[in-house]
């Protein structure tokens, strides 16, 4: 979203996209629901990436949100979609609150590896916990909204679409405001040089922790959406390839624009469903080539297509590989 776009315009945009779902065919509707849900978690990764840290373990919060919602839904019969999203976000957020401060000390590769390790610990635990269905997972009922239950599948799809677009849209608006705030700019400074940020009297660790918490909340809510869309959950939610896909969306989008995250997520879902249709068994190949193409030709993501070099960073031709940045101070 452009720097000068007013929040009210953005709200109107979200409302427009939601109503647009009325005229979309059913298959696009469920596609868009998944795209919106993936955009939400990728948005979290972008928020975190602005501090220079890429999390390869968002699947941890994704699964935590999903399992939290599923367990509560099955235990107390809570099926309200909005309540489920809030529960998912809370589960992700609580976990993020615990893990964030512990992990904020690390940077670069170590940060990525540690998040990956934690999500795989969770995966390993889920696979072996027979009470939660082990590697098969378990099913949950159809979600309702404010006491209404939807028996018509099309209505149910639209309800889910509307909730996910609105939640993701508002998360996007909040993120845009965050990016422009003092805190958002300080996050960018942490990526450039965390020691200098400390010299200025800010706590780099706290900035990373808060961004991590935001990413975890988004991931938890996204897990709730994924659960509602599939009405099934299994440990695959926490597997590292799931997390990899979200990082994929974030890279595709680049970290300059919030709107790019939605476009990237939708593009990924379209590529996936079309290659599923025409090239079954090779969609990962298509995805890989797509990713390489983006990294090669659009190094700052598809957001750079419409946002011109505002933060153009010069990379020296003889830049040494940034190994020493990996060391924690």
């Amino acid at each position, binding site marked *: 979203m452009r720097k000068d776009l007013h929040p009210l315009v953005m709200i109107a945009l979200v409302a427009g996209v939601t109503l647009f779902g009325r005229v979309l065919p059913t298959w696009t509707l469920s596609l868009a629901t998944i795209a919106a849900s993936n955009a939400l978690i990728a948005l979290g990764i972008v928020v975190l990436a602005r501090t220079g840290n*890429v999390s390869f373990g968002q699947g941890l919060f994704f699964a935590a949100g999903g399992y939290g919602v599923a367990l509560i839904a099955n235990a107390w019969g809570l099926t309200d979609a909005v309540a489920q999203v809030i529960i998912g976000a809370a589960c992700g957020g609580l976990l993020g609150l615990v893990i964030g401060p*512990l992990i904020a*000390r*690390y940077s*670069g*590769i*170590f940060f*990525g*590896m*540690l998040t*990956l*390790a*934690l999500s*795989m*610990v969770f*995966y*390993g*635990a889920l*696979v*072996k916990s027979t009470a939660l269905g082990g590697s098969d997972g378990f099913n949950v009922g159809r979600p309702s909204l404010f006491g209404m239950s939807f028996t018509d599948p099309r209505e149910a799809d639209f309800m889910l679409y509307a909730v996910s677009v609105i939640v993701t849209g508002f998360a996007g608006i909040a993120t845009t405001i965050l990016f422009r705030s003092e805190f958002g700019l300080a996050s960018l400074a942490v990526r450039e*040089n965390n*020691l*200098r940020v400390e010299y200025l009297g800010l706590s780099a660790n706290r900035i990373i922790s808060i961004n991590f918490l935001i990413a975890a909340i988004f991931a938890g809510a996204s897990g709730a959406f994924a659960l509602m869309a599939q009405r099934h959950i299994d440990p695959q939610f926490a*597997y*590292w*390839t799931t997390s*990899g896909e979200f*990082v*994929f969306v974030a*890279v595709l989008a680049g970290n300059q624009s919030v709107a790019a995250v939605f476009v990237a997520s939708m593009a990924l879902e379209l590529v996936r469903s079309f290659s599923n249709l025409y090239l079954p*068994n*090779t*969609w*990962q*190949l298509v*995805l*890989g*080539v797509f*990713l*390489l193409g983006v*990294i*090669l030709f659009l*190094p700052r993501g598809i957001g750079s297509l419409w946002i011109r070099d505002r933060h153009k960073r010069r*990379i020296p*031709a*003889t*830049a*040494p*590989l*940034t*190994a*020493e*940045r*990996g*060391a*924690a*101070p």
Partner: protein
Amino acid sequence: MNFFLTIILDGLIQASWLFIVALGLTLVFGVLKILNIAHGSFYALGAYIAATAVTMVAARGLPPSVGFVAMLLSVALIASAVGLLLERGLLKMFYGRDEVVLLLVTYAVFLILEDVTKLIWGVNPIYATQPYELFGNVEFAGLYYVGYDLVLIPISAAIGFAIWFGLNRTVIGKIVLAVIHNEEMSVSMGVRVNRVYAIAFAFGVLLAALAGALTAPKISMQPGLSSDVIILSFAIVVIGGLGSVEGAAVGAILVGLARAASVHLMPQAELFMIYLIMAAVLMFRPEGLFKRETARRI
């Protein structure tokens, strides 16, 4: 007593092939500063090629020993070619970019190779069990072991020693160490860093594929093999310290023993244990057990 011996032997057998995989990963990281997610795919590639070679040899009625040699040779040839091709043709374009970007490039390679192996070898499990009987069964302190498994331990020890010797006692190895230590300085001393990169990457691929070939007779090859192996080898190199040969050895033994111990004592904790060790090591020594502190830029 026998019980502990079983755990230790099983652990060492696991550690032996894990060590070879991790060695490749740690070498590539040391020289190119790339954490190669596609490393597991090269392991799977090696395993699949080995299976094809073994099956072809067996179809001609030749003895399994010929199959064993044929599988190692074919894997070595194809893997080095693939490694050189990938480094020169693809990775080269991304040098100088952020290390996270390079991580994603190898993630893309992982995705591509995942489907390429499916296209070539299909999705059904493939077996190549003929060489497994090659060394017979061995009785060891009242326990029966498949000879092939035990032979893996000296093989990987020999490979580890060869790498250590090559790096520390030969001219080429010293050059590689110089590049690992300070790339800019090596360039100015006249080292052809590009060539070192290409060779190191190809060698890393070769080691992964070789480990795949050596384990091929023990396992069934099917999709998903690569993503499991990469996670294990990540754990090993992170425990030992990225870029350290000794670290890879210690990490492999730790992970091998942890896996064997949890299989025998607490099967439900198998996956869990390894990542827990990895997370614990990262928490307390993010540089791994065997890495020296490095200076950072302010």
